[in-house]
């Protein structure tokens, strides 16, 4: 009886091994036949995946010689503070310019340069009471200070304009001179949806 049981078990295990080998072989044949398609599918899934582990925003560093940022911040993360004493503004600056980012504070247009890089920097914020409601009080000569982990940058306002929201020519991206452009919705105390923007232009002074 016991002998029979052992024989049965052995026979069953043999069949299991055969089945396992068949399954593995089938898997390998399919995998090798459709390897490119499988890798493409995995790449697409990787594209829509985000590493959600909690990490501290990397401290931005600037190369002293080339004046280029070596560790750009992740989109949507805070990397600086903007201070405008004239209108009691002391707000966080986030890298990103979508509506979700602007809810948190001042946004930095992802297509523009960073403070210290020597090009155009574009910041934007809502015209609400806790952001840029008092923008119209700014005058030529007023100072804007941007503090980052790699340095503090002071700008002096030299111009201001009212433009249409689609008027991108009024916010030129260039690399010859460091200019900070900060804009908000206009009219500043508007009711409803605002189609215009109030822009201040400032040169780097220190």
């Amino acid at each position, binding site marked *: 009886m016991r002998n029979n049981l052992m024989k049965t078990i052995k*026979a069953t295990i043999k*069949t299991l091994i055969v089945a396992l080998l*068949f399954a593995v072989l089938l898997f390998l044949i399919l995998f090798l036949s459709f390897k490119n398609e499988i890798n493409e599918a*995995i790449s697409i899934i990787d594209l829509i995946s985000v590493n959600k582990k909690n990490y501290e925003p990397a401290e931005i560093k600037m190369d002293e010689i080339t004046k280029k940022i070596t560790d750009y911040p992740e989109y949507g993360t805070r990397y600086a503070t903007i201070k405008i004493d004239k209108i009691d503004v002391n707000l966080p600056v986030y890298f990103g310019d979508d*509506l979700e980012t602007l809810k948190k504070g001042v946004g930095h247009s992802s297509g523009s340069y960073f403070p210290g890089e020597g090009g155009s920097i574009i910041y934007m914020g809502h015209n609400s009471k806790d952001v840029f409601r008092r923008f119209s009080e700014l005058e030529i000569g007023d100072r804007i200070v941007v503090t980052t982990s790699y340095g503090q940058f002071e700008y002096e306002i030299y111009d201001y304009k009212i433009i249409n929201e689609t008027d991108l020519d009024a916010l030129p991206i260039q690399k010859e001179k460091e200019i900070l452009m900060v804009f908000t919705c206009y009219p500043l105390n*508007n009711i409803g*949806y605002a189609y215009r923007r109030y822009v201040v232009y400032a040169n780097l002074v220190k």
Partner: protein
Amino acid sequence: MKTVISYLLTAIIAILFIILVILLVINNTILNAHFVFEKLKENDYYSLIEVNIKSGFENYMKQSGLDEDVFKDIYTKQKIKEDVNMIINDIYGIEEKSIDTTIIQKNLENNIDAYLETNNMKLNEEEKHNMQDLIEKIVNVYDSEISHPVYSDLAKKIIPMAKDMVVVIIPIIIGIIFFFVIILFVVNINQKLNTIKYIAVSALIASIFLIICITLTNIRINIDNIVVLNSNFSLVIVNTLKSIMSKFIYIGMIASITSIIIIFLYNMIALRKEE
């Protein structure tokens, strides 16, 4: 020779079992509106959508010059649920309807009028025009958060087509399986019990294959990190995918265990007959 042919047929039946299980699971999950409703309820999707709607409104609140209260109570949770269900029903061809946002527009207009009256504000022509634009944008936020038009239009094209195909293919696959089982039976006509063993081996091969595939997928892809549209929508997608993958594992485990038992019993009977 008989054994070789039998194992060849076993392999073919195993492949057909795999295809059948995949189609049955898809038919009972992604292509099944009830499964989708179940997942939405399980993940409290309607509350998550409300969070997204409020977040979307906030994008316009600050720049609107209006109080936050103006944007409150312009929709109800019940309306959100009804509208989401309407979209699902539309996608799955159960009922063709579209979201009615006129009540939201009306409520928002009433709130704005009340706010303007309370604050003694009168709008000039430009402001009236801007206000209308704001109302339109708010209504669009609600509509797009509920329906996600790009995705729902795509789903509306794919799902009915897939359902029609699957409904036709499943009986065909079952028919083909029966056909090969009959051939297996004929090949093993002198040892009829062998047919049962080979079918059990087919089921075992299919279930091991499915378990290998799902396990490797879980290792290679971190499903928890998938992001579609926003975190709330992603939560539902991720949990749904996990549910589908668990179904495959569950079916694989049950089929494996059942097959092993059948093979064991067959071997026991075969041994007794030999003696």
